[in-house]
């Protein structure tokens, strides 16, 4: 009886947004009288960071510091329609809507600034620190705050913008499945190292190594959060979780967290992540999305690592110790593959 180590790999891609499109999101952006901006949405932040990423997109597009923007969501009386936070669509769909709204607001802001500085709006640029100046002449400058005051109290302009992003709904062919499912895809390669105990069937995940391509990491800390948390969920799906352990037999289903297994803080392992950025032509600053696909490659990578370690294939999830032991018994014991 022994413990055997093995490595497994999986490579995947993932479509961004609802399949076939037809899932719009809207955004509103407006300035208060002293040049602080509000983004108004009906999109949901369920932990993925919707408020934060749309805030950065708005600040970048407006050309103001991120501290000067706050995102208000979600109130159906004030926030315009959003399809919802699912299908890895938030960053791509809502982000684009926010960009469009921020561009419109920025155009008014630049016109108002031009009127104050008595120049052409096309000659102006933002410095990203709260001021607008003539290109090549930083001393001919006006604070965004003063632009907003002027727009509101002297010029009678609304520094505001509306945005919508819609990938038009496409059809699917009944006979061939021809369709336009998505406009862009994220990618990943995931390598996992496991240790399999051939006496207990227990599988320990020792190390994860991954490379994800996401278009653009709009906020690398938020990307890291999702990838690290998502890989934990993938490991959990691979080895632990099920409400029906003997599916399709419905008996023995867990009813609460005492019976529904997930890896705890003592079951995790180091995860070495690399992020690649190949911008999507229609993503906000090239960004795609990662909320869902971060978990997907872990499941097969773990299964493949178990094969590499002990030579058995378990084709049914989750790969519980019971299934590993049954497979080992059928195989006549562990047969480690050539080391990787």
């Amino acid at each position, binding site marked *: 009886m022994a413990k055997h180590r093995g490595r497994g790999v999986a490579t995947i891609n993932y479509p961004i947004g609802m399949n076939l499109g037809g899932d719009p999101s809207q955004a509103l952006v407006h300035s208060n009288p002293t040049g602080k901006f509000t983004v108004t949405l009906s999109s949901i932040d369920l932990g993925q960071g919707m408020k934060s990423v749309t805030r950065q997109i708005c600040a970048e597009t407006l050309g103001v510091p991120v501290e000067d923007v706050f995102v208000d969501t979600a109130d159906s009386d004030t926030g315009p329609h959003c399809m919802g936070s699912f299908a890895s669509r938030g960053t791509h769909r809502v982000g684009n809507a926010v960009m469009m709204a921020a561009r419109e607001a920025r155009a008014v802001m630049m016109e108002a600034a031009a009127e104050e500085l008595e120049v052409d709006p096309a000659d102006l640029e933002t410095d990203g620190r709260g001021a607008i100046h003539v290109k090549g002449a930083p001393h001919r400058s006006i604070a965004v705050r003063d632009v907003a005051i002027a727009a509101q109290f002297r010029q009678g302009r609304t520094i505001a913008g509306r945005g919508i992003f819609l990938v038009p709904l496409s059809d699917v062919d009944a006979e061939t499945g021809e369709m336009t499912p998505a406009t862009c895809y994220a990618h990943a390669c995931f390598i996992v190292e496991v240790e399999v105990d051939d006496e207990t069937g227990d599988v320990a995940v020792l190390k994860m190594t991954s490379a994800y391509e996401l278009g653009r990491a709009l906020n690398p800390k938020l990307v890291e959060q999702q990838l690290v948390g998502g890989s934990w969920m993938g490991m959990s799906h691979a080895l632990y979780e099920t409400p029906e352990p003997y599916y399709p037999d419905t008996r023995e289903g867990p009813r609460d967290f005492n019976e529904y297994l997930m890896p705890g803080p*003592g079951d995790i392992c180091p995860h070495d992540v690399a992020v690649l950025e190949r911008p999507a032509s229609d993503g906000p600053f090239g960004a795609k999305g990662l909320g869902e696909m971060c978990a997907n490659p872990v499941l097969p990578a773990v299964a493949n690592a178990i094969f590499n370690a002990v030579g058995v294939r378990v084709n049914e999830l989750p790969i519980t110790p019971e299934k590993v032991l049954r497979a080992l018994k059928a195989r006549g014991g562990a047969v480690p593959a050539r080391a990787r």
Partner: protein
Amino acid sequence: MKTPVQFRLNGEDVAAFAESGANLLDVLREVVGDLSVKGGCWQGSCGACTVLIDGAPRLSCLTLAESIAGRSIETAAGLRRGAELHPLQIAFMERFAAQCGYCTSGMLMAAKALLDRNPSPTREDVVEALGGNICRCTGYEPIIQAVLDAASGDRRRRA
């Protein structure tokens, strides 16, 4: 039938009328109005409702409200001293140790109980202390790191 219960909550005297049989979680949230305490399972299996009772981490959903008369309760709402954040709160922020944030209050209190009794915990100590708290978003690593950071930060300040 309601029973009056007096206790200390985050250093303040509190008096509340609790339904007989009511749990501390419901009394804190719905009678006293401390919404920092979260309910996730109401049966003692997720840790979201963790509070400190006389310094020890306890699941408020399994604690009879009547049993805390005269005792001292700490919740996440009391971690901050005025505008100053607790070192654990700072460390959780710096480590991006929350996503949806729903388990965070319970995590903070479980961690505070640990650091209050063991200012220099090992990683294993932290893992042990957080073992009763479920987080579905982060994969735990940022939370473990945050607790270790807060502990070492405390040591640096004392040094």
